[in-house]
């Protein structure tokens, strides 16, 4: 039977769903939403530790932990894990970001028990087999080499180094070749022991099941996992630059990849919603309606890809304000100046009433697209828990947006954007040796 899980309201259509939130005695947070729109279940376990906690000399540690979780547990080999999940057409993946390690699984509803069992096994009992540690290091080194072929990736790395300076986010999450070399199996096991504890994990499960039936199974799978005292490394907040920083990296290519920006904001910043509207007007939105794509792409024809955003990278740590353009070498000055001009304009001049209203209609109207699939809802639940948005966020969000004024936009643009003291990174044929 199909259930209508969304309802219309005066503020536009938006999703409604009932979240069942439980905390097991060992501290594991469990969030469940029943949704029978497809005969499948999406599971998402987020361990609240990531590359931000990597020691500088061992950068890449958290990501390597995540990538070794499915390479062997106390009772299953790497191949047995792969065969178990693939033989039912399911998937199980682990990935690490700066702030969390996420193990996610997608299975048909009939295979939920298996999905849960594998998820628990990977989280609680990985063994980091020595031969896989060696393999994974080789693989990471090789992938870093491969990634360096992409000018946009190289530009992104250089940009982060200049923006974050000594803050942990200056590094790529996979680390550097020399830090990857240094990581040992003991490091991986110690990271797992320290952070993979139930009171540091959020488990969200969305799909075609009954929560009343599932909860005892979750208790059975995770109940024996002992709660531990948690300690996290501390580091100073990053500081926004007060001078211009620039880097030009020469690389034979068709285009220049230009990153321009500076330190941004964290997701819990109270001005986040005003900044989302500012992003929509300056560099995001639908099609090429925002100022930067409209001017630099649609009018001047400088680029296929150009955008700007400060909220896109906002997390527990402050993200970055990024304005990006990929353009032919002869356009370098025009493109860079074009980005700066639009940043300056939104700082100096108020946005029009119409721009603001359109941006509000866009954000509130398109909100529903973030909840279309069960895996999207599962990710949202973690997001809501980590950033303390509340599960009534779907009701509150349109109001947050509705209450922002044009003066708010100018205020936040002045507070969080800087058209003088920014970082500029240009990668490509900077000396004009187009190839």
């Amino acid at each position, binding site marked *: 039977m*199909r*259930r*209508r*899980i*969304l309802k*219309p309201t005066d503020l*536009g*259509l938006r999703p409604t769903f009932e979240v069942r939130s439980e905390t097991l005695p060992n501290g594991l947070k469990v969030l469940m939403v029943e949704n029978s729109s*497809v*005969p*499948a279940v999406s599971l998402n376990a987020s361990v609240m530790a990531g590359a931000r906690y990597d020691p500088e000399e061992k950068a890449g540690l958290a990501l390597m932990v995540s990538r070794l979780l499915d390479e062997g547990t106390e009772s299953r080999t*790497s*191949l047995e894990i*792969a*065969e178990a999940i*693939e*033989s039912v*057409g399911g998937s199980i993946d682990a990935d690490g970001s700066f702030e969390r390690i996420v193990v996610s699984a997608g299975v*048909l509803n009939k295979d939920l028990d298996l999905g849960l069992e594998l998820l628990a096994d990977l989280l609680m009992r990985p063994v980091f087999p020595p031969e896989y540690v060696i393999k994974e290091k080789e*693989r990471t*080194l*090789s*992938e870093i080499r*491969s990634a*360096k072929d992409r000018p946009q990736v190289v530009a992104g790395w250089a940009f982060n180094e200049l923006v974050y300076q000594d803050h942990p986010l200056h590094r790529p999450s996979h680390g550097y070749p020399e830090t990857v070399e240094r990581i040992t199996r003991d490091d991986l096991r110690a990271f797992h022991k320290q952070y993979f504890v139930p009171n540091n994990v959020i488990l969200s499960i969305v799909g075609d099941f009954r929560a009343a039936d599932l909860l005892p199974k979750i208790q059975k799978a995770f109940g024996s996992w002992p709660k531990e005292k948690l300690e996290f490394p501390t580091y100073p907040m990053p500081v926004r630059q007060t001078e*211009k*920083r620039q*880097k*030009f*990296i*020469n690389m034979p*290519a*068709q*285009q220049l990849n230009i990153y321009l920006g500076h330190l941004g904001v964290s997701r819990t910043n109270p001005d986040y919603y005003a900044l989302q509207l500012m992003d929509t007007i300056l560099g995001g939105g*639908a*099609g*090429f*309606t925002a100022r930067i794509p409209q001017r630099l792409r*649609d*009018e*001047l*024809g*400088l680029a*296929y*890809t150009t955008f700007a955003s400060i909220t896109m990278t906002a997390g527990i740590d402050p993200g970055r304000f990024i304005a990006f353009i*990929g*353009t*032919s070498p002869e356009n370098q000055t025009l493109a860079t100046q074009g980005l700066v001009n639009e940043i300056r304009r939104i700082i100096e001049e108020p946005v029009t009433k119409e721009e603001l209203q*359109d941006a509000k*209609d*866009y954000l*509130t*109207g*398109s909100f*529903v*697209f973030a*909840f*279309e*699939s069960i895996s999207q809802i599962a990710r949202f639940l973690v997001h809501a828990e980590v950033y303390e948005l509340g599960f009534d966020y779907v009701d509150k969000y349109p109001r947050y947006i509705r209450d922002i004024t044009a003066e708010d936009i100018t205020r936040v643009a002045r507070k969080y954007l800087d058209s003088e003291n920014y970082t500029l990174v240009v990668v490509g044929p900077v000396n004009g040796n187009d*190839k």
Partner: protein
Amino acid sequence: MSSLVSPSVFAIEEVRRTVLDNGLVVLTKESHTSPIVTSMIWYKVGSRNEELGHTGKSHFLEHMLFKGTDRFKKGEIDLITLKNGGGNNAFTSHDFTAYYFNFASDRWDVALDIESDRMANCAFDLEEFEAEKKVVIEELKTSLDSPWGLLMQELEAGAFKVHPYRNPVVGWLQDVERATVEQQQAYYRRYYQPNNAILVIAGDFQTDHVLARVSKAFGSIPAGSPPSAMSLQEPPQRGERRLIVRWRSKVPRLSIAYHAPAIAHPDTYPLQVLAVVLAEGKASRMYQRMVEREQSVNFVSAEFGEAKDPTLFHIRSEARGEHSIDEIEASIYGELKNVIDNGVTPAELDRAKHQIEAHFILSRERTLDQAILLGQMESIGTLDYIDSYVRNIQSITAEQLADVCNRYLNENNRTVALLLSDGSKDTVDSEEADIEAD
């Protein structure tokens, strides 16, 4: 073999197919799980319809369709999308050009007005055309800065000698540079007609009401004379072709393409299952051999998709460390030979079928994904293809896998493209220049 779930998860009986008097095919699929409606329009024109010296026209046209009509001025289509909190985009392939809007279901039908208007009334303003040409050229350059984008372009040009699948969808640079607004407009007139188009609407709406609305929006557009069929056929390949692309990278990459049949040919089903057995997931043969045991590659993939005309089966890989292309090629050919000589196990076959079926179910959650499936199959094949797809996959035997592996994935039928270093220095590490703050 264990039983598969339900062959009718994406039941085609839920899709209504209507043909208007002017030939427009309308596919509607109601589903009320989310308050969203996706509307897509598909034109049966892509780079396969382009003539020598005029490549990239279908794709350029896709860009021009956003540049306005008499009724919707430049920028207005995006602005309407913004004001209504929606999303829009478009894509062009070898076989088709498709446009979509995603809107909440209380405001979606403005999409019908836009699509019906730009089916017949696209403005071809010279200034807009020249400005957009620059954008298209930047898009073309972006793909050439990607190692795989570049290698695929060269591979397709090498694997096909006659058939237009040899040309990149975005076009060859010189053709794009020389394109004129008059030619572009003529191309539009030839292919953008109701009788060469498919409208797909999926999501939260009432079918009868919507069909009446569609009829009103599109019914008055007259049918055109049907564009002549593209009749070029690729002659048989008579031996291995090898090509080398020199590039700045130090990481060798390899792409092998085998000629393979068009959509719905009986051999396409075992070829799809074979692709999964070979390289989908960590339990697959090539992953186990090349990534796990030999550790010679960063990844290996096997891909085979549906196309209107005979197409290519691709195997791609990227060398790890100092491992050579020769070694990687030998492993790939060794695994193919192993399938031919020794077959695949019942467990492997079973696993591959489950993977294909589960993917078929799990990848159709969003209305946009549903609309893409319907539009693609109607434009290059038939809707029946979707209906019988899982059943056809289920019926494949191990003998069929060995048979298609032998007949298609053989030396004489392959084009091997290598991306190798041009000998330039590692520019990132050695030539970076810091310019101090002013």
